[in-house]
């Protein structure tokens, strides 16, 4: 199995599309939220919306760890790394995210030592190879990436590597989903559950969504067939009046999660009492910080963080797009003042951002394109 080709089989995808059309009750309008930004991108990249009937609507959720970070945290990270002997290391996805005075790439052009790394272990390697410099790793991501940051900190401590620290911006997914469900402007029928976060936390953390809120959740993979099959499973539950958590991504997601990863996270991190999310405001117990036992490797405990709160430009509607209240194209700045090259907010540059997905893949498609496809 190649694990890509099979899940893109045109025949199976067609069948899934037919099943969706069969299951969707024409008298209902279904609003299904895909939580994870990776799913948003997959949906646009594979043109999956073209395969759904009109009454099955996909709402984009806040599962983009770059997008939900307030601009002030990016400014903080760049301010910390402004010392001449610092190296600012981050994933490629961070590089074009706008801070108040520019993105990391723009800071790099102005002389800051900014490096793209593919994992926190690479950042640690940078520290080993540059003993006269301090490497600050801008850690970002939901529970998907938190374990690797944790393991890197464990290793840094074990090696006694002093010229390395982590500026921790890891956030957790459940509070974000809770904030969506608590929001008065949202009416949702079900969730396509995040696939990669679930490889770490498992499927149990979503139980309350089904039991207390009465909404079905299907944890999904990222190939076209995964997503379509998850929608089939959701529609089946809705047709039968059920609300439970199901795992479509069985080949990767264990129901109980990854205990080694969770243990590493517990060893290194604790929950912040509260954390500010772009668009969702302050949410308690929603973000991770480094424990005192690892203080030496926590940029915030070792150095002074400016901690400036920066509000988004008034006209920007990042928050509403993040919550799914607005579609990207409905934001007043979309495609005008805010484009991938001149982004106002992170949603337009992050590879998980719904504005970026919409702008890059969709918004210039004529509405009639799907029907004019003579293949």
């Amino acid at each position, binding site marked *: 199995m190649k694990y890509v080709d099979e899940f893109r089989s045109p025949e199976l995808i067609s069948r899934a599309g037919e099943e969706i059309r069969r299951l969707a009750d024409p008298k209902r309008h279904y609003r299904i939220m895909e939580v994870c930004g990776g799913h948003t991108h997959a949906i646009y990249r594979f043109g999956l919306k073209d395969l759904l009937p009109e009454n099955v609507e996909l709402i984009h959720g806040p599962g983009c760890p770059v997008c939900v970070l307030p601009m002030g945290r990016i400014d903080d990270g760049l301010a910390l790394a402004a010392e001449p002997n610092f190296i600012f290391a981050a994933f490629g996805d961070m590089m074009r995210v706008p801070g108040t005075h520019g993105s990391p790439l723009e800071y790099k052009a102005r002389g800051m030592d900014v490096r793209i790394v593919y994992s926190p272990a690479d950042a640690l390697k940078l520290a080993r190879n540059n003993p006269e410099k301090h490497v600050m790793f801008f850690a970002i991501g939901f529970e998907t990436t938190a374990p690797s940051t944790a393991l890197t900190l464990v290793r840094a401590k074990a090696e006694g590597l002093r010229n390395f620290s982590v500026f921790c911006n890891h956030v957790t997914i459940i509070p974000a989903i809770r904030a969506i469900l608590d929001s008065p402007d949202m009416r949702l029928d079900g969730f396509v559950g995040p696939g990669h976060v679930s490889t770490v936390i498992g499927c149990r953390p979503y139980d309350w969504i089904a039991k207390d809120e009465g909404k079905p959740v299907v944890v999904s993979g990222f190939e076209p067939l995964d997503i379509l099959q998850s929608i089939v499973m959701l529609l089946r539950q809705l047709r039968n009046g059920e609300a439970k958590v199901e795992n479509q991504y069985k080949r990767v997601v264990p129901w109980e999660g990854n205990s080694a990863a969770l243990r590493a996270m517990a060893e290194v991190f604790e929950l912040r009492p509260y954390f500010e999310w772009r668009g969702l405001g302050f949410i308690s117990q929603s973000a991770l910080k480094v424990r005192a036992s690892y203080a030496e490797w926590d940029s915030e405990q070792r150095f002074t963080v400016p901690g400036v709160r920066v509000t988004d430009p008034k006209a920007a509607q990042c928050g509403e797009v993040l919550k799914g209240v607005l579609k990207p194209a409905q934001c007043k700045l979309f495609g005008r003042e805010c484009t991938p090259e001149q982004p106002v907010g992170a949603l337009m540059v992050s590879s*998980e951002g719904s504005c970026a997905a919409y702008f890059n893949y969709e918004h210039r498609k004529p509405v009639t*394109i799907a029907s004019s*496809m003579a*293949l």
Partner: protein
Amino acid sequence: MATPAAKIRFREPQIEMAHGAGGKASRRLVEGLFAPLLFGASPGPLGDAAHIQINGTRIAMTTDSFVVKPLRFPGGSIGELAINGTVNDLAVSGARAEAIVVTFVLEAGLPTEILEAEVRAMGEAAEKAGVRIAGGDTKVVEHGAADKMYISTTGIGRLLTGVEISPQSVQRGDKVLLSGPIGDHGITILLARGDLDLEAELRSDTRSVFPLVDKLVQGVGAGVRWMRDPTRGGVATSLNELARDCGHGIVLFEEKIPMRDSVRGACELLGLDPLHIANEGQFLAIVSAEHAERALAALRATPGGEEAAMIGEVREQPASCVLVTTLYGGSRIVDMLVGDPLPRIC
């Protein structure tokens, strides 16, 4: 000659890496700063090579520079890129390369054996491509002021008869041809940099495409409307430039685009779009519908063109955009590259 009223539309305060990546930022720089000041009042669409008339003879002229790290990689080196890249720019503007002049900017401290290896590679590539290296210049800069070696080339060529290519001649119904699999060069370079723990049996596809272009033009003549070699920015950028220049839409059929499994796998893993990855040994051709089958057959019958494919067609909608369709009925717009392709987080 800049007219007194030449308007600079380039407003950015400093030059960034993105301005050299071959995508939107590069285009802004060229159209907004260079064109108004250097290319006169109405420069016309910017192609790979300039066509100049001297005493009634039409020649094509092009220039390029090569800044690549690492200098050597599976399948080639900077020297070969320099020669083949220039030959190809001339080829896709419908010309046979006749002569190239070369400038070296060398970093003090560069070991002679490295320079020798590149010069040798250039000589071999030139001989293989049938082009003369007619002269050159050398400058040496201080240690740290150049990344070992920068090579710049200028090539001139003789326009082939029967070729009239321009974006304006592209029409609805024309077909999009591609000479072979995409992504080999860009992914090879990415892996050769050693930052990624990825290995693949990949080589750069650097080669002269002139023999294929020649056969195409011989077979189809005026049926060839437009050609381009999709280097930095990839197929997506080249076709977006065309779509913008001709105003039509270009629809690509995803399953028809030739690509090696290793390129596809690397792109999947890194979250890169193969359509944005640089190629150094391929070219795109827009061919009239009536000639398309014959053109494709001519390419496939030529050594090096066996994997040529018809990957799409020109349509009215979506105007000035490139759309990629999938076998199961989905579609997405694919835009020019913005900045450098950056691998994703999760």
